[in-house]
């Protein structure tokens, strides 16, 4: 592996009493799509903004493209692309005007019309920013992150506010970035997005990286078992389900239950017996592989959307 594009060692940042980032260490390789997965307040955005040079760390070592973002200023900012959350651009400007404005900040700039086409904004080229839907505004904001054709681009929750179709389009675009050799650092709380796009994922919670690996490895490391999911609105408790044969863990949210089992046929048999004995209905039952969402729940005891 060549020199990492990003090296972070024991990074810390506090806001008053709140330790937002509490000792984070990781590396991002050249050409990698690196995901940071975690709920709101996990420290993803703070970490990324330190890497972008927008925030100053309290302590720790940070190297991005061989520079320290905190001290390299404009030389550094020329080389990276950044997308931030919740930026409401000039509401009265048109899409193509904003793209050329941002292009004018860099020596190296992509063709405005090419970017518009790449982001699928052709029919909104002359629309004012205030008229864009949430998904379109989000796509424009991703376009601005690559207006300088950077080697390294940071995308902070890029698919927020998008409908499922728009989200899939965005995933294609991000895969296009990777195909061009860009390194992408992506924060998200959509587990599907991380699974689909990321070569490796850092799972963050309370300012720490609690797991770091490829999505499939994360699942494999944490779950040798598959899950049984079903809905039952009557009398089956987490406690009962946890005592079924071959069950490793069980969780219930209201009437929705999921049980992880190392031996699906045995667990299934005992579940059916229990349901019959209790007279409890079982609806929408299915067996599936574990996901990153399950990994997160297991590692933190919380779901990503909490």
């Amino acid at each position: 592996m060549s020199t990492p594009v990003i090296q972070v060692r024991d990074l810390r940042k506090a806001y008053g009493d709140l330790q937002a980032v509490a000792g984070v260490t990781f590396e991002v390789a050249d050409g990698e799509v690196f995901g940071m997965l975690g709920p709101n307040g996990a420290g993803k955005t703070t970490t990324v903004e330190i890497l972008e040079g927008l925030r100053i760390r309290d302590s720790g070592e940070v190297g991005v493209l061989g520079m320290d973002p905190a001290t390299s200023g404009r030389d550094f900012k020329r080389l990276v692309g950044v997308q931030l959350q919740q930026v409401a651009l000039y509401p009265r400007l048109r899409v193509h005007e904003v793209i050329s404005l941002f292009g004018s900040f860099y020596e190296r700039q992509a063709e405005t019309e090419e970017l518009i086409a790449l982001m699928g904004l052709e029919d909104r080229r002359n629309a004012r920013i205030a008229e864009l839907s949430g998904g379109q505004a989000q796509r424009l904001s991703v376009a601005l992150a690559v207006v300088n054709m950077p080697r390294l681009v940071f995308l902070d929750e890029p698919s927020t506010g998008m409908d499922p179709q728009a989200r899939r389009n965005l995933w294609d675009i991000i895969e296009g970035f990777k195909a061009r050799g860009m390194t992408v650092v992506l924060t998200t709380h959509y587990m599907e997005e991380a699974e689909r796009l990321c070569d490796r994922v850092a799972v963050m919670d309370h300012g720490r990286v609690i797991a770091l690996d490829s999505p499939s490895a994360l699942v494999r490391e944490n779950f040798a078992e598959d899950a049984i999911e079903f809905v039952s609105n009557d009398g089956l408790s987490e406690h009962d389900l946890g005592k079924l044969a071959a069950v490793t863990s069980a969780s219930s949210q209201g009437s929705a239950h999921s049980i992880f089992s190392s031996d699906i046929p045995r667990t299934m048999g005992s579940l059916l017996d229990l349901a019959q004995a209790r007279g409890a209905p079982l609806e929408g039952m299915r067996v599936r592989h574990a996901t990153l969402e399950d990994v997160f729940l297991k590692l933190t005891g919380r779901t990503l959307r909490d």
Partner: protein
Amino acid sequence: MNAFLPLFRTNYRDFVRDRTALFWTIAFPVLFIGIFGIVLGRGDEGASYEVGLVVEDQSPQAAALSQVLSGFEAIALTRGERETEIAMLADGERRAVVVVPQGFGSSISRDAPLPLQVHFDPSQQTTQQVVIPVLLRAFEVADRALTQTRPVVTAEFETLQSERLQVIDFIMPGLIAMSVMNGGVFGAIAMVSLRERRVLRRLSATPLPAWALVGADVTFRMVVVLVQTVLLVILAVLIGGVSVKVENLPALAGVAVLGGLAFVAIGFFLGAFAKTEQGFFPIAQVVTFPMLFLSGIFFPLDSMPDWIRPVVSAMPLTYLGDAMRQLMVGGAPVHSMALNLGVLTAFLVVFFGLAVRLFKYE
């Protein structure tokens, strides 16, 4: 690569597409000047004031008096009956009515002259200030004609300032100074809005230097201030009939820009205390509103009580208004031009320095 022009163009587009900003910076001052111009304006320079003349005496002296009066261009004389002329005065159709009473001629011969009766409405300022003096002068001339005396004491009056400064000449430069203040202070709202919308933060992630961002913004504000000033001076002349000192117009533009810079700096400083565009308005109002009334824009400074003078002296609009009045119409100086320019420069330097210190990207 050079981002200055694209940023300037962005400011321009953002401004001309913002109807509210257009209204407050262009339409509102234009309306203001227009209304003041119509209400207080000189009107047509050659126009004369309607005066009614009621002659109830048939003597040659009365005839001679009428002739002298009709020779004055400043008054348009209409002869009529006493009742109709007084009614016209009550209706505002006459500025004054002069009655030559019966027996006027014979009273002169008897060396016990009857006084003329002059009816007028004392609440009418122009009558008091213009018509009555003209009438008095006319009576004087008529007096000499009738008594065949030669005047011994005569005088020529030479005014130090431009010929006849009227209320409108006083107010117009002040109104222009007011628009410069508003254009500057409220112009800073664009920056507050960019910060509120997190655009400043996004820009801070690009290699764009801060000076280019601020420079393009300030340059654009100054262009707006200049356009405003030129437009308002033209309106002051056309509608208000203000006689502008044309040779001073370049200096006036320079002072408008200096004042504009000082007020933009104050606006940036105030902007540091507002999180949102909505929050900026009351702060800016609190600062600009007292200046409207205490900086000699509408009321001359010497009509104010002494205890308020220190407040007046602390207000930058006082100096901008005074400088603009001196340059535009040759108004009597309150302060020397050097003091006016010095104070405005000091405000610019101090508040720009503070604004830079307090500036935050988010």
